[in-house]
C-alpha cells in the first residue's frame, strides 16, 4: 500500500469495524437479542474511543517524526 496511507490505515480499519458492527449481517443477530435500551450507544462509544486513540498515536508519531 502507498506510504501516504500509512497514518490513516487505522482509520480505515476502524471504519470497517464500525460498518461491521452497525451495518452488516451481524445486525440480524444483535437486533434479535434482548438488549437493554442503552446497548446501541456502546459500540458507538467504542468507535469514538478508537478514533481518539488513533489520532493520539498519529500525533505522537508526527511529533516524533518532526
Amino acid at each position, binding site marked *: 500500500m502507498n506510504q501516504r496511507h500509512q497514518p490513516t490505515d487505522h482509520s480505515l480499519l476502524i471504519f470497517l469495524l464500525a460498518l461491521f458492527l452497525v451495518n452488516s449481517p451481524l*445486525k440480524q443477530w444483535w437486533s434479535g437479542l434482548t438488549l437493554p435500551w442503552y446497548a446501541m450507544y456502546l459500540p*458507538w462509544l467504542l468507535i469514538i474511543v478508537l478514533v481518539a486513540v488513533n489520532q493520539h498515536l498519529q500525533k505522537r508519531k508526527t511529533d516524533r517524526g518532526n
Partner: protein
Amino acid sequence: MGIDLGFLFFIALSYLGLLFIIAWCTERGWLPDRLLHSPLVYSLSLGVYATSWTYYGSVGLADTSGYAFLNIYLGLTSAFILGPYLLRPLLRLCREHQLTSLADLLAFRYGGRATGFAVTLFMLFGILPYISLQIRAVTESIQVLSQRVPSNMLALAFCGVITVFAILFGARHLTPREKHHGLVVAIAFESAVKLIAMVVAGLFAVTQVFESPMAMSRWADNQPGMVAELYAPATSGLWPTLLLLSFCAAFTLPRQYHMTFTENENPKHLNTAYWLFPLYLLILNLPIIPILFAGRYLSLSMDADFYVLGMTLTLGREWLAILVFLGGLSAASAMMIVTTLALSSMCMNHFLLPAALSVNRPRDFYRRLLWGRRLVISAIIAAGYGFYIVIELQEGLASLGLISFVAAAQLLPGIIGLLFWARATQVGFIAGLSGGAFVWFFLLIVPLMLNSFDPVRWLALDTDIWTLTTTATLSINGLLFIVGSLLSRPTEDEIAASQASNEYAELASGATIARSVIHYRYALRQALGSEVARDELARALQETGIDKKETRRSELRVLHERLERNLTGLLGPTLAREILRRQPGSHEGLLSNTPDARMLERRLHTSREQMRGLTKQLDDLRQYLQDVLRQLPLGVCSISADGQIYIWNSAMQTLTGIVERDAYDKTLEQLEAPWGPLLADFARSSDDHQFRLKTFHGGRPTTVNLHKADLGADVGMSAGALPGQVILMEDRTDLDKLEAELAHNERLASIGRLAAGVAHEIGNPLTGIASIAQNLPDDIEDSEQRPLIQEQSDDILSQVARINSIVKSLLTFSHADAVAQTPYEPVDVSQRVREAVRLVSLSPDTRDLNIEIDMPDSVLVNGDANLLMQVFVNLINNACHASPAGSTINIRGTLQDNMLVVETIDQGSGVPAEIRDHVFEPFFTTKPVGQGTGLGLSLAYSIVANHNGRLRIGDSEVGTRMIVTLPLHATDS
C-alpha cells in the same frame, strides 16, 4: 397551563441578544485566544449539524422508526472516521484554492459556469424547505409552551433577528482569508447550549419522571416488546439509507461545508474533531430514548417531536421548559445563520456576479460586493419565511429534514469524482445532478404538493420512501455521471483541477499566463475596475514577493496562481479563471507546457507534513542533496534544455553578485555582464573546460575556471522537463594571487641564495684588497708621493669597508631564517628598544633629532635578543634618516590582547601609497644609489615574522608609522 407568549418572546430575544454580545466580544478580541483558537470551539461549531430536527425531531423519529434515528449520526460519525481520506483532502483544496462553498468546489473541478449555477440552484431548492422547517420548529415549540398559536409576526421577528446576526457577523469579510471568529464562537456556544439543555432534559426524565435509571429500565422492560421494537428497524431498508444520507451530509450539506472547511482556521483542529464531534453527537442523543420513554410514560397527547417540552410542562418545571426551548432556538438559529451564509456565497458567485460583471465594470466593487452579499442573505431568509407561510406542511420535522438530506446527497457522485476519478467531466456531473434532481423532485416534492400521490404505493414497492428515493436518485445520478463523463472529454481546466485535487498527482501544466504583470493589471481593471485591480494585484505581488516588472515565466505563473486563488475567494473559481484569461494578447500568452520545478518544490514543501515512511525519507534525501549543491564552495549553475537557469547556488551568488532569485528562470544571456556573456559563450562552446578566464568584476580583476557537462535524458523529470547542462565555476582569483606570491618569494629566496654566494665569493678577495690597500703607503719609498698614496689608500679602504658592509648585510639576510631556528628565550623588549636607541644615537646623523621612548617596563616576548635589537636598530635608523633636523621620533609601546605593539613614528615625508607593497622586499630602497642596501626593512620583516609577529606600515598623517606586533611571553600574557 402554558407560559406567557410575551415572556417567551422576551426570553428568545434576550438569548439572541446574548449571542450578539458573544460574537461582538469575540470580534473585539475580548475572549482569551486560547479558547478562541482551540479545537474544542471548532468541534462544537460543527454541532450546527444538530438542527431543530435533531433537537425535537429525533424523539419523533425514534417513536416511529426506533433506533434508525441514530443512523443520522452514525453515518456522520463514519464520515469523520474516514476524515483522513475524505475531509482532509477537501479541507486542503478549500484552503489552497479559497473555495468558500460547495458550488465553488464543484465549479473548480467541473469547470464552467454551468456547474456552479446548477449546484447553487439545486441547493437553494433543496435547502429552502429545511430553513422553513427551522422557523416552524421555533413557532411550534412556542405554541407547545404557550398553548397558543403564535402569530406570523413572531416568526417574522425571529427571521429578522437572524438576518441581522448573519449580516453583522457572517458577512464582515469578503474573502476566506479572514475568518468570522465571532460567528464561529457564537455557533459553538449555541451547540453547548443545545447539549446542556438536552442532557438536563434527559436527566430530568430519568430522575424526575421515573425517579431513577433502574425504575426507567424496569418500566421499559415491563412494556411488552417496546425495547425490542427500538432495535427492530435495524433489519429494515431504512437503516442503511439513513446511514448513507448522513454520511453524505458530513460534506454535502452547505452548512457543514461552511463550518468544517470555510471557517476552519487550523487544519490540525480537524484531527480533534474526528472524535470530539461524534462524541458531542453521542452525548446529545443519549437522552433521546429516556425522553421518549418519559413521553410515553406520561401518555402525552402531542406529537412525539415535542415530548421534551410536554414532559417538562406536565410536571410543572417551567425553568426546564425554557431551557429546552432555548436549546431548540439555538438549533434553529445556528442552522439558519450558517446555511444562509453558505447559500449567499453560492448565489453571489454563481448567480449575481456573473450577471453583474457581464453588464458593466462596477465602481466601488468591494462595497457593492459586501452589500450584495448582505442583500442575498436577507433574500434567502425571506424566501425561507415565505416557504413557511405559503406551504402548509403536514410532514414531521424529520421528514422535512430528510428531504434536504436526499437533495444534498446528489452531490456525492461529484465529490467522489473530484477526489478519486480524474476522468470525470462537467458533462457527466451536470447530467448526473440533473437526473438525480429530477427524480428527487418527482418522488419527494411532488407528493408534498399532491397529498394523494404516494410513490411507494404507485410503484408497488415493499420499501419506505427514503430508501426508494435515495436508491433511485443516487443510481440515476451515478449512472448518468459515469456515462456522461465517459462520453465526453475532460477540458484542460478539468485536467488541471483534477491534478490540483489530488495532492499526489503530477503538477498541472496547462495554465496560460500573461507576458507581464501589467497585463494582469489590465485584465483585472477591465473586469473589476481600477481600484480592485490595484488592490488585488498589490496583494498578490506582496504575498508572492514578486516584482511588478517581472517577466519570467515561472514567476508569472506563481503570480497567476496567487491571483486566481485570491479572486476565487472573492468571486468564485469560474469568474476568477475567466477574468485572468482576459489579458490582452492572451492568445499569445505563454503556454507553460512543462511542469515548473519551482512549483514542484513549493508543492513538496507544503506536503511535507503529510509525508511518511519512504516518501519522507526520499524527500529528506532530496533536501540533503539540495543543501549539498547549495553549500558547495564551487559555483554551480544548471540550465534546462530550453536554456533557463534552474540551479544557481550560493557560491555562484557570492562569485557573481547575482542572487538566485534574479537568476532563476532567466537564460544565461539575460544575466548581467560580465557573467551573462561569459557563461553563455562557454555553454555554447564545444569545450568542456576552460581555464584561467580573465574578467573584471566588482572593481577587481577576476580569474575563473569553467567546467560543464551535459545532463542525460535519464536526469529529466517524469513529465518531460529539464535535461540541459550543468556548469561549474571555480574562482581562481585568490589562488592566482597566492601562486604569484609564492613565485615572487621563490624568486626572492633565489636572490638571497645568490647574494649569500656572491657575498662569500667577494669576501675573500675583498680582504686581500683591504690588506694591499692598507700596506700600499708603506710600500712607497718616495716620501713626496706617500701622502697622495695614503689618501688613495684610505679611499680604497673606505670603499672596501662599504663593500664589506653590504656583504655583511647580504650574509645576515641570507642567514636570517637559519638563525631563527635557534631556541628562543624571554627577551625584555623595552630594554632592547632603549639599547637600540643608544646605539643609533652614536651615529652623527642623529645629533639634531629628539627620540622619545614611551615603553612599558619589563615587557617580555619569546625571541632572540640580538635579532630583535637588530629590528629596532633598523627601524630607528630608517626613521632617523627620514626625519628632518630638529624633529622628534616617537617610540611607543602598548599591550593589546596578549600582544606587544611597538610603534616607531617619525616626522619625515612618509611612504607613498604606491610603494607600500614593495618596501619589505629585499633590495628595495628609496635612498640614493650607494646609500642603502634595501635589506634593512626586509631583514626586519623576516625577523619579526619568525617571531610570530607582524611588521607593517600604519596610517599616519605625518611621516611614517612602522608598527611591530609581537606575541607576549606566556607569563606576561
